[in-house]
């Protein structure tokens, strides 16, 4: 049994069916890439795993290490080791970044990490990701550029030490330098205790993070699966060609 098992998952948003039966496995220690054009349902899958309230699971299962996630709240899932790096992290006005991170680390680790230990960990991770110390004075995501928000998502993953990291278009909107920093950050987190699901529209990030498997989604279903070479194929032929092949 895989650590993450998604079976015949169907998901609706506002009454519209977005996922039409998705089945996917992910083992800890592995990295898989989920690719697909806009509107194919990739982000919907990410939100469904994290437990976003606007996404209604109408059928199928999401099982994480034997636990059915579907009836759990987002915070319960996070405390089981599930992490979603969001495509559009929201600004939370007035909530201090330091206080937020410490509250989250304590909640996920289930222990009261001493302030000094926490701050030294935080400073180390910030340095690794090239995040300036002045960010400590800010509110969560407030006034962050797109690239800063993405870096901050990875910073959170580094502090929370999840066992499943879903990266929803973490590469979008990043220039090459920022992409490299973020990819290095992800690579540092990879190891036998972490499963990574990279959701992306482009193959670019996969030059820096090599996946074990690549799956392609279209219209709410997975239409192709393969090794890293599938990404190269997509790069050459594009989604339309692949879609046609899947239908034909």
């Amino acid at each position: 049994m895989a650590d993450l098992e998604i079976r015949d998952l169907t998901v609706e948003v506002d009454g519209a069916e977005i996922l039409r039966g998705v089945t996917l496995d992910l083992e800890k220690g592995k990295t898989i890439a989920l690719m697909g054009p806009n509107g194919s349902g990739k982000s919907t899958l990410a939100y469904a795993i994290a437990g976003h309230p606007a996404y209604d699971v109408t059928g199928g299962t999401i099982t994480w290490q034997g636990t059915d996630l579907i009836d759990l709240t987002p915070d319960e899932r996070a405390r089981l080791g599930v992490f979603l790096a969001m495509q559009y992290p929201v600004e939370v006005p007035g909530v201090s970044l330091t206080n937020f991170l410490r509250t989250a680390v304590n909640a996920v680790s289930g222990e009261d990490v001493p302030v000094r230990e926490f701050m030294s960990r935080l400073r180390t991770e910030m340095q690794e990701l090239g995040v300036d110390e002045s960010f400590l004075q800010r509110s969560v995501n407030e006034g962050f550029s797109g690239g800063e928000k993405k870096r901050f998502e990875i910073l959170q993953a580094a502090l929370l030490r999840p066992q499943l990291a879903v990266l929803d278009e973490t590469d979008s909107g990043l220039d090459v330098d920022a992409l490299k920093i973020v990819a290095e950050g992800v690579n540092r987190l990879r190891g036998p205790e972490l499963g990574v699901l990279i959701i992306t529209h482009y193959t670019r990030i996969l030059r820096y993070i090599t996946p074990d498997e690549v799956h392609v989604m279209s219209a709410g279903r997975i239409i192709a699966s393969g090794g890293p070479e599938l990404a190269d194929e997509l790069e050459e032929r594009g989604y339309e060609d692949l879609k046609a092949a899947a239908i034909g």
Partner: protein
Amino acid sequence: MNLDALTEDELTRRSDAAGEPSWLRDRRLAAFKRTLDQAWPDSRKDEFWRSTPFDRRFSIDREVVDGGADASPPATLLDGLDLEAAQARVVDGAVTEVSVPTDLAEQGLVVSDLASAARDHAEVVRRALGTLTTSDPDGTGAGEDRTVAVNDAAWTDGVFVHVPAELEVATPIGVHVHVTEPGAHLPRILVVVERHARATIYLEHTSVDGIDALVDEVVEVIAHDGAEVQLATLQSWADEVQHLSLQKVQAHRDATVRTLSVTTGGATVRLRPECDLVGPGAEVRPLGVYFADDGQWFDLQPYVRHLAPHASSDVLFKGALQGRSQTVFRGNVFVHRDAVGTATDENNKSLILTEGAHADSTPFLEIECADITAGHGSATGQIDARHLFYLQSRGIPREEALRLIVYGFFREVLTELDLPGLEDAALAAIEGRIEAADLSSFQVNDAALRDLAEEVEA
């Protein structure tokens, strides 16, 4: 002496008994004469009273409380900090305690009861007292209603603070008004900060529980040329207290004024944080936070008058409501025709936490001058489900996440002033209210979640 039936004889007798100078007695009597022609506010007729029914929320048939308390008042915010600070305390209408650290006293800082100040610092007190209310026939307070005129006539005791020119007082100066007796309380506070001096005032209001009292208060603050003044007021009353408070600042040339009112207690609190910008280049930042719980009614009426050119003002008030509570924000900014180069902004935000709470908000501008920049805004909403999801997705339980979001809403205001202990005290007061609430009944606005579900549209 009943608040609704003041008499000339009684006011004269009291003034003489306190050994007040004749000019002060005359001012009291002049104010008393005004009250004879004044009715109490009528919420059906008076524009500024329209949103709060005076006769239902305030009872004026009360005896004026004039000292005699023997209760030991609670510790103040400043008591809890390791600071050498000047403090004064008014309990049940009488000053019971004044302390000024020796070094500040040597540098000329005066903190005193108002009756002695009228004798010992007659010149300053005479020039200032009542000039922002009814004692100056040409002033902006000349037309004040009876709630203010009765304080001008019958204030019992109060606190005088004088900061001499160029003295920078690093630690906040505490003024504590505490109520233990039922009845009408008429405290009076006068603060004069001379040119290029700096001072911060903490004005704390507390009471014993279950007390049926009306506090009709007037605070006057004069910030002379280049002075820097911060005035933080905490309305931390027990749930039964009725509070009327005019907290008025006059800012002269290049003075910088910041005010913050924190209102969490009281049955009905009608707060008027006002500022007259009378000198060019003066600057005021009136801030307010309030948290109204079941049964509470808060009426916040900040008023800024731009009476000189090139002055600026930026009003920001934020309130949260839960239970069957009511808040009113009626902000006013007046720009005189000569106040060219004025820059002003005025904003109010309300967070409705549970069903049944009601927030009224009217930011108002009255502009006689074309050459200015002015803005105003008002927003009322609920906790944003996107914020809640984001925090929860990081493992933070729902209730803790809600609390963080509410604190965050207020921190945006509180962090504007870097004053010792104040942010913690304000958040603690708010926390007390949240703790008593049922967080599971907090309403969350999930309309914005649709933005995230954009794949639907693609």
